């Protein structure tokens, strides 16, 4: 199917720590269609982050195949993976991971820099993205000067600056209070409404309520894959 953004088949991941092998994923099948928004749920240690890292081309599966936008990306070289991360994937992390010495605008520019976009256009687009998350007025602030919720907004702006087809968020609200979490989820809902495919990892049921589709992972396997009516995004 051509509108499949990603398709995992029999994906396994085995970590080797010293002599000890640990199988974090034990055969995961997962299809995500363009424009979907889904929550990956599961208890701590179930393999959500591992799965996210494989989807995000930060890590390779030990077994199985991975198609991203119809292309087999299982065996890409390191440079090809870097390029694909840059072009097709946007990351949002639990700990925000803004670069502390760069101001907000420069942070948003980072993926554009690696895409080789000229400085003036970079600046323009980064500013546009900051504006879309409501932080254009703080473009020249450092990350240390803004709140957690604002940091995560900047991270979202940075993830989307390169116009990726897939937005991956690993526990994006894990470091935020309830109210700010709701703001961020509302933002994801809106972005999804405008066409971006969103995969959110969470272990909080409240968060999963925002997505139509919920995939439950346990012990490295998909336990259930359900669809329900999402709760409407909260506006502030």
């Amino acid at each position, binding site marked *: 199917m051509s509108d499949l953004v990603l398709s995992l088949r029999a994906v396994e991941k085995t970590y080797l720590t010293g002599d000890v092998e640990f199988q974090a994923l034990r055969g995961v099948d997962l299809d995500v269609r363009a424009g979907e928004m889904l929550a990956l749920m599961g208890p701590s240690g179930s393999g959500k982050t591992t799965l996210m890292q494989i989807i995000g081309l930060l*890590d390779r599966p030990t077994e199985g195949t991975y198609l991203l936008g119809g292309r087999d990306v299982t065996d890409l070289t390191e440079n090809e993976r*870097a390029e694909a*991360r840059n072009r097709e994937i946007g990351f949002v992390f639990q700990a925000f991971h803004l670069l502390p010495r760069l101001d907000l605008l420069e942070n948003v520019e980072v993926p554009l820099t*690696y895409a080789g976009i000229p400085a003036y256009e970079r600046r323009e687009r980064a500013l546009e993205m900051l*504006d879309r998350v409501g932080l254009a007025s703080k473009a020249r602030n450092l990350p240390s000067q803004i709140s957690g919720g604002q940091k995560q907004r900047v991270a979202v702006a940075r993830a989307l600056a390169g116009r990726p087809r897939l937005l991956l968020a690993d526990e994006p609200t894990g470091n935020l209070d309830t109210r700010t979490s709701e703001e961020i989820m509302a933002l994801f809902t809106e*972005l999804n409404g405008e066409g971006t495919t969103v995969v959110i990892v969470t272990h909080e049921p409240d968060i999963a309520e925002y997505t139509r589709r919920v995939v439950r992972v346990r012990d490295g396997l998909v336990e259930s894959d359900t669809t329900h009516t999402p709760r409407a995004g909260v506006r502030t």
Partner: protein
Amino acid sequence: MTAERLPAAQTPDEEETLPGRRGGLDFLGTLTIAWRAILGSPLRSVLTALGVIIGVAAVIALTAIGSGSTAGITKSLESLGTNLLTVQSGAPRFGGGGLVRGGPQQTITMKDVEAIGTFAPNRIAGVAPSSQSNVQAKVGSSNLQATVIGTWPAYETVRNSPVATGSFFTQDDVDGRKRVAVVGYQIVTDLFDGQDPVGQKIRLGNVSFTIVGTLPDKGNTGFGNPNAQVLVPLSTFQQRLSRGARSGTSVTVSNVYVQATDKDDLTNLQNDLTDLLARQHRIEDASSYDFNVQNQADALASLNATTQTLTLLVGAIAGISLVVGGIGIMNIMLVSVTERTREIGVRKALGAKPRDILTQFLVEASLLSVGGGLVGLALGVGCAYLGTLVNITPVFSPATILVAFAFSALVGIFFGYYPASRAARLDPVDSLRYE
């Protein structure tokens, strides 16, 4: 909050056709990233570059002062006269130490001088025997300690010592043992208030002389104080001022200056004069010579040899300090890579290739070392000018500056490579997890 301003709809599988998409990170971008990292921790950056700063400053300053003083000595050696041979009493010393005066008993007699004068007239442009003593020079009630040199008129050309005013004494003055004198610049300023003293009287010891000429300001540099010299006819000097230095029955002189006609003949003439004097003194064994003939070229050559040794030493010190500086850079860069593991992970997640990370840290290391080189250059030039405090005008060689600078840049790249490649090889998953 800002829902109305969210992005326009975007079809997810739309083909991206952004300009420069495949081009990757441009050089200006890399430079900016590195520059930000350096400015981000200025104190650390300065400390990191300190080794290079000191290394480059040391090379620049030491070589400039070294060549400055060499140039100074060369100039003052050359100002003593060109194509100059000096016949002196005492056994020959090797290594060109012909600048030391006094010491051995005088063995060069007026007969020797005569022999030299008639030896090879077409190869010798001038002969000026000289004897000297320190005498009080007195005009009215003022006086100063002067070095009175008794010599021949040829001294003017042989020792490159033309008069500023008046004229040199003549052969007639020598033949007639006239009491005439050519006085140095300090005599004019100190005893005559700077007025031209030609025609005036001056007392040297107990003898009154008439001043016929003055010497120009020779600077209070070099050896002794050439401005306190007074030149008089040798015959007059021997009769009235010296204590009758003799060897056997012959009157002796301190030394004989001989100017060769041809520069290329200098060494041959030196050997021939040595043979001549050996015959005069009836000494066969070279090891028991009681005289020596110094060649000005020898002194210059040994000076140059010394300079080259010094230059090598300075180069070695500089090389070592630059290497130490490089190790400093490597050290701090390794710490910096560890500290910025998370940053590297984030950058990789956002699309940085290993090569981008490698370049980033390499450029950072090179910027540090090149910056250090520039600061060192400025510092070195500044320090070199401190040499003027001791009358050495520094001489800067563009080649040295270029080499020191290029070397410092290379040091950054060389010692930055290992930390940079470690950064480039970091696994994105591990680095994102790194606390």
